[in-house]
C-alpha cells in the first residue's frame, strides 16, 4: 500500500480519511490532559495486571478458605510490613507497593469506566462522566498517598 505523502494530504487517494480525522484536527489546540491521563491509565493497567490478582487472593481468600492463619493479614502483620524502620527498606517498599497499586487501580479503572460508559450511553455526558471519575481517582490517590506517608513522614 502507498505511504501517505508527508505534505498536505490529498483525499483523492483515501476518501473518508479526512472525515475520520475531523474531530482530532478540531481538538489539536486543546489536547493536553488526554496524553497525561492516558499515560497514567496505561501505567495503572500494567500495575493492575501484574500485581492486583495475587493481592486479591492473599488479602481476600487465603484466610477465609483456611490456607493461611488470620495473623498472616492481621494488624500486627501490616504494622510490621509497613514499619519504615524495617531492614532492607521493606517498610518503604510495602508502602510504595500499596500507593502504586491503589493509585494505579483507581486511575486505570476511572479511564476504563469512562470509555465503557461512553459506549453504553452513545457518548452522552462523556465529559461529565470523565471529569467525575478521573476526579474521584485523583482524590483517592491523594488519600492513599496521605495514608502511606502517615507514620513515616507525617
Amino acid at each position, binding site marked *: 500500500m502507498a505511504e501517505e505523502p508527508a505534505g498536505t494530504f*490529498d*483525499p*483523492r487517494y483515501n*476518501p*473518508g480519511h*479526512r*472525515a*475520520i480525522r475531523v474531530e482530532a484536527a478540531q481538538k489539536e489546540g486543546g489536547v493536553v490532559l488526554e496524553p497525561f491521563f492516558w499515560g497514567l491509565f496505561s501505567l495503572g*493497567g500494567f500495575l*493492575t*495486571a*501484574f*500485581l*492486583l*490478582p*495475587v*493481592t*486479591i*487472593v*492473599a*488479602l*481476600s*481468600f487465603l*484466610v*477465609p478458605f483456611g490456607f493461611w492463619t488470620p495473623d*498472616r493479614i*492481621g*494488624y500486627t*502483620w*501490616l*504494622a510490621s*510490613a*509497613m514499619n519504615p524502620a524495617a531492614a532492607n527498606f*521493606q517498610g518503604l517498599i*510495602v508502602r510504595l*507497593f*500499596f500507593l502504586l*497499586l*491503589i*493509585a*494505579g*487501580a*483507581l486511575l*486505570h*479503572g*476511572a*479511564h*476504563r*469506566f469512562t*470509555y*465503557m460508559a461512553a*459506549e453504553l450511553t*452513545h457518548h452522552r455526558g462523556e465529559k461529565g462522566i470523565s471529569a467525575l471519575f478521573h476526579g474521584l481517582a485523583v482524590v*483517592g490517590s491523594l*488519600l*492513599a498517598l496521605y*495514608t*502511606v506517608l*502517615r*507514620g513515616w513522614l507525617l
Partner: protein
Amino acid sequence: MVEVREAVWRRRSGWWTQNGHYLLFMLREVGGSLSAVYGIILLGLLITFDMGQASYEDYLAFLQTPAMLAIQAVILAFVLVHAFTWFYLIGKSQAVMSAYRAPEWTRVFGLMIVIFVAASVGVLFVVFGGL
C-alpha cells in the same frame, strides 16, 4: 482537491455483542473498571489501619462476610480476564505494529505469564512474608 463530505462515525449500539473478540474487549473494560473497586477496598484497608487495631479487624471481618467474598470473587475473575486478555493482546498488537518482524504472539504471551508468576511470588514474599 476533491470535496469530502464530513461525517461523524459512530458504532452501532450493541456492537460488542456481535462476536467473541468484541465481547472479550468489553469484558476487559469491565475488569479494568472493577480493578478500581478493589483499589477502594485497599484504600479502606489502609484508612482503617491508620484508625487503629479494632477498626482494622472490624474491616477485615466485614471483607470476610459471604456477600463481600462473593463480590471479591467476581472482581478477581474480571481482573484475571483483564490481565490475561491484555497479555494476549501485547503479542497480537506487536504483529500489527511491526509486521513480519514481531515474534509469535504465543512467545510473548508465555513471557508475560512468566513475569506474572514471578511478580506474584515476589509480592507474596516481600509484602506478605512468604507463601
